[in-house]
């Protein structure tokens, strides 16, 4: 119970932040916020000994039990690792933000509410075992990310970035919900654990692959995989603590988490392996290649995040292959999942610190443009050291943790080349090659980032502020992260045993049941010249050469046509297509002319009714039961037809009105002839009043326009009216020709006197049997009368109207 409540602690704490902000002005609100992640990290740390033994903890809080929806906190290796990352880096980011955001200038309560909301949402995502609540928290991360990116909402770019990221991630989230629903239909449960248990049966479903693709779309959009990565560089408009927290360490890893969590279910599928590994590799290469082009510090980091996420994703894809290999525990594929989780931890440490350094540089110099920066090494020695550690780790150099995970990554990719299932014999060889090339570019941009900023000539005149070292408080978090980067290199196996191995068990339950079975020993030096080592040396040599000659070949990027970028595609879809084209399309049929709409309606009705009549073979004419035709009736019909034709084609309106009157009186004569005296009476009276009304209006209404319209349109009009007329006739004929049950009128005829004490059956029906109809018919008349009175009496002058519109 408390375990579930812990997910909600940040969001509950958020409720108090406006109070602290308003009442305790002298203390930075961030100090109050800091308590929350610190508490959470301690709380989750208490689970570590238990979980690292391979046990799991579960707690449940029912929400909608009748639908099987409940808040679940399920802690296994994977979710505990993520929870610790979220709360741990959360604490560091809050600490950093205390020094980064000025309490006198910024709307701090907003910032911390969004941040705490996000923290709850992320904890919910990684701990939820119930797919519906997982989706709920998932969208909450999107929403809070939207709010945080748009934190400086008076800037155009912030709003643009916020909208873009939301459209993409929420779009993916919707897809994911679809996948969840499909899965829950297949497995008849919302619980992921229960679904994992029945994974082999699920794979036989027809919709299995569809669910797979939908869920992957959710994961890819959130984790900024190709081609959905485009929101991440624009999300850099957020305050730097947000970029460090959301867009490098936690939220973008929600997609990674999702893929890892669903690997046991989907690993059986070949599509999964190909999509996850393929898209991951493509993203890895794409991100690293374009990172070198960026001139904004955070832009470089954004592309590098994209690239590193691709790396982790591809490793997860490769780890799914292990499912298809007999005795995979003894093959190298076991490395893949391990390397993915290991790199995930490493990436969170070094990327978090790099973002914070970028923020410090921005804060202390006033710019993030790499072309204006340079030579800050002497002025900001601590920042430089941290940046150097982070970049070298990102580039995969010893003695930093990135080296270890990159080695394992290369091992896993090399093993794919030797694998001969699913056409991997032909394509598998590409895996290590792409991985290697991407690593070269990673090396280049890592060096580009750190050396362009901190070495070279200082351009003081171009900097908006006079640079100096950041305050100590701001440096605490990056220094802690950087020391972790180094520490993990020297004690990798401690991290591996405590965190990585339980997570690997969660990803590959089909291989291991206990963390101790994961017999991987991380070592910086494998005791020999391995292919991975040669590849790393190659990366360093080629990377160094390319970095030295960067100025010469950087023009390559200009060769790419600016129009063919994915951002342009997004702009086209969102602004050009939805805004302009869809508007044009709407205006095409929403003409504003009532006649057009009526034409649509009548045509639609005619097509549907006549179509149904013939598709269902409902048309029938039968003369059985028809009453005989009398001459007087035929004459009456003739009068009616003449009257109607006159009404339609009369040139003057008085003729029209009088002809309409004639039609009305003829109808009342029909009523006489068909034995309906009450109807005849009413019709006669009402027709008289109507004609009188028409004549009253006649004086005020204008004459008919002489030339009403062109002949061509009259033809369409005539066609529609003929179609409706034909429809009515056909329906009337068919209805009359196939009667199935007798009228209930006999009852009324029999009981009208005995029960109701009346002789006029129609009147008794109106006031006795079905008196309610009459009551409300009276109401209709009353309303019409009042409305007419109101329309004539109550008039708003134009002045008042204008006033009201203001």
């Amino acid at each position, binding site marked *: 119970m408390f375990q579930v409540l812990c997910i909600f602690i940040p969001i509950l704490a958020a409720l108090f932040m406006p109070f602290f902000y308003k009442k305790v002005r002298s203390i930075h609100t961030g100090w109050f916020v800091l308590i929350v992640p610190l508490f959470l990290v301690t709380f989750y740390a208490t689970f570590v000994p238990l979980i690292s033994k391979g046990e799991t903890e579960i707690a449940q809080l029912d929400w909608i039990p009748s639908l099987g929806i409940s808040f679940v906190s399920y802690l296994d290796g994977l979710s505990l690792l993520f929870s610790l990352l979220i709360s741990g880096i959360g604490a560091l980011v809050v600490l950093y933000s205390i020094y980064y955001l000025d309490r006198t200038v910024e709307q701090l309560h907003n910032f911390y509410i969004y941040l705490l909301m996000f923290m709850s949402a992320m904890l919910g995502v990684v701990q939820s075992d119930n797919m519906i609540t997982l989706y709920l928290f998932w969208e909450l991360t999107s929403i809070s990310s939207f709010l945080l990116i748009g934190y400086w909402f008076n800037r155009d770019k912030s709003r643009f970035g916020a909208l873009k990221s939301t459209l993409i991630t929420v779009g993916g989230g919707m897809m994911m919900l679809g996948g969840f629903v499909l899965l829950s239909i297949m497995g008849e449960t919302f619980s992921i654990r229960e679904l994992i248990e029945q994974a082999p049966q699920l794979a036989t479903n027809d919709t299995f692959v569809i669910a797979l693709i939908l869920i992957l779309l959710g994961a890819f959009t959130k984790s900024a995989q190709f081609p959905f990565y485009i929101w991440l560089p624009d999300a850099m408009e957020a305050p730097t603590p947000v970029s460090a927290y959301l867009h490098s360490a936690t939220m973008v890893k929600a997609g990674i988490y999702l893929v890892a969590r669903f690997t046991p279910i989907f690993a059986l599928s070949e599509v999964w392996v190909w999509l996850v590994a393929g898209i991951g590799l493509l993203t890895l290469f794409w991100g690293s290649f374009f990172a070198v082009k960026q001139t904004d510090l955070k832009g470089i980091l954004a592309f590098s995040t994209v690239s590193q996420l691709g790396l982790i994703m591809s490793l997860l894809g490769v780890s799914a292959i292990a499912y298809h290999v007999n005795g995979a525990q003894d093959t190298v594929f076991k490395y893949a999942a391990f390397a993915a989780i290991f790199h995930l931890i490493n990436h969170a440490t070094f990327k978090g610190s790099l973002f914070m350094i970028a923020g410090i540089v921005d804060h202390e110099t006033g710019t993030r443009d790499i072309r204006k920066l340079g030579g800050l090494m002497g002025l900001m020695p601590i920042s430089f050291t941290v940046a150097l550690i982070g970049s070298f780790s990102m580039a995969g150099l010893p003695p930093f943790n990135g080296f270890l995970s990159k080695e394992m990554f290369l091992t896993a990719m090399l093993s794919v080349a030797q694998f001969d299932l699913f056409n991997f014999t032909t394509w598998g060889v590409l895996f290590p090659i792409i991985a290697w090339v991407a690593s070269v570019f990673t090396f280049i941009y890592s060096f580009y980032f750190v050396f362009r900023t901190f070495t070279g000539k200082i351009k003081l005149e171009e900097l908006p502020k006079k640079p100096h070292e950041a305050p100590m408080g701001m440096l605490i978090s990056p220094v802690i992260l950087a020391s972790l980067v180094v520490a993990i290199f020297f004690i990798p196996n401690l991290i591996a045993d405590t965190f990585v191995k339980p997570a690997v068990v969660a990803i590959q339950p089909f291989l291991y049941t206990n963390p101790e079975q994961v017999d991987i020993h991380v070592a910086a030096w494998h005791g020999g010249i391995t292919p991975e080592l040669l590849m790393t040396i190659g990366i360093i040599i080629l990377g160094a050469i390319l970095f030295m000659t960067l100025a010469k070949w950087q023009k390559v990027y200009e060769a790419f046509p600016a129009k063919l970028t994915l951002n342009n595609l997004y702009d086209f879809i969102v602004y050009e297509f939805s805004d302009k084209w869809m508007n044009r399309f709407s205006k095409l049929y929403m003409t504003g002319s009532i006649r057009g709409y*009526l034409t649509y309606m009548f045509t639609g009705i005619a097509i549907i009714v006549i179509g149904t009549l013939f598709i269902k073979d409902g048309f029938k004419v039968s003369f059985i039961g028809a009453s005989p035709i009398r001459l007087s009736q035929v004459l009456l019909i003739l009068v009616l037809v003449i009257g109607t034709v006159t009404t339609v084609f009369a040139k003057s309106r008085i003729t029209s009105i009088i002809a309409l009157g004639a039609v009305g009186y003829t109808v009342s004569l029909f009523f006489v002839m068909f034995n309906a005296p009450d109807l005849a009476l009413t019709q006669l009276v009402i027709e008289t009043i109507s004609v009188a009304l028409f004549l009253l209006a006649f004086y005020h209404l204008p004459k008919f326009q002489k030339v009403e319209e062109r002949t061509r349109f009259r033809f369409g009009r005539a066609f529609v009216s003929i179609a409706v007329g034909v429809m009515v006739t056909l329906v009337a004929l068919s209805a009359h020709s196939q009667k199935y049950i007798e009228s209930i*009128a006999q009852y009324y005829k029999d009981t009208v006197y005995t029960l109701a004490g009346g*002789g006029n059956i129609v009147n008794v029906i109106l006031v006795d049997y079905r008196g309610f*109809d009459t009551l409300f018919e009276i109401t*209709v008349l009353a309303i019409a009368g009042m409305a007419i009175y109101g329309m004539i009496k109550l008039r708003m002058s134009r002045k008042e109207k204008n006033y009201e519109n203001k």
Partner: protein
Amino acid sequence: MEIIMAFVCGFLFMAAIYLILSRSLLRIIIGTGLLSHGAHLLILTMGSFKGSAPPVLTDGVTDYVDPIPQALILTAIVISFGVTAFFLVLAYRAYQELKTDDMTLMKGSEDHE
């Protein structure tokens, strides 16, 4: 007779729709008038013309026509009258305010758009 009346009703509907699709507001209202006549006759026809005596109890008569459609039509007549009257006054007011009864010219006002 019912067969012929089916055609008559169809004809009334056709004329009514033709008028409703015109530009002049008065013509549209005349069209709705024709439409309600058509509908009333259709109800009566569908109730069939069986029986030779009006539905008022008379000694020695058993062959009454069906009273239910008549009751329905009576209600319908009154309601359509109420609506027509309202509509007519609305057209009158619209013409007073807007100085036109051409439907194609009644596309929003200056406050709109």
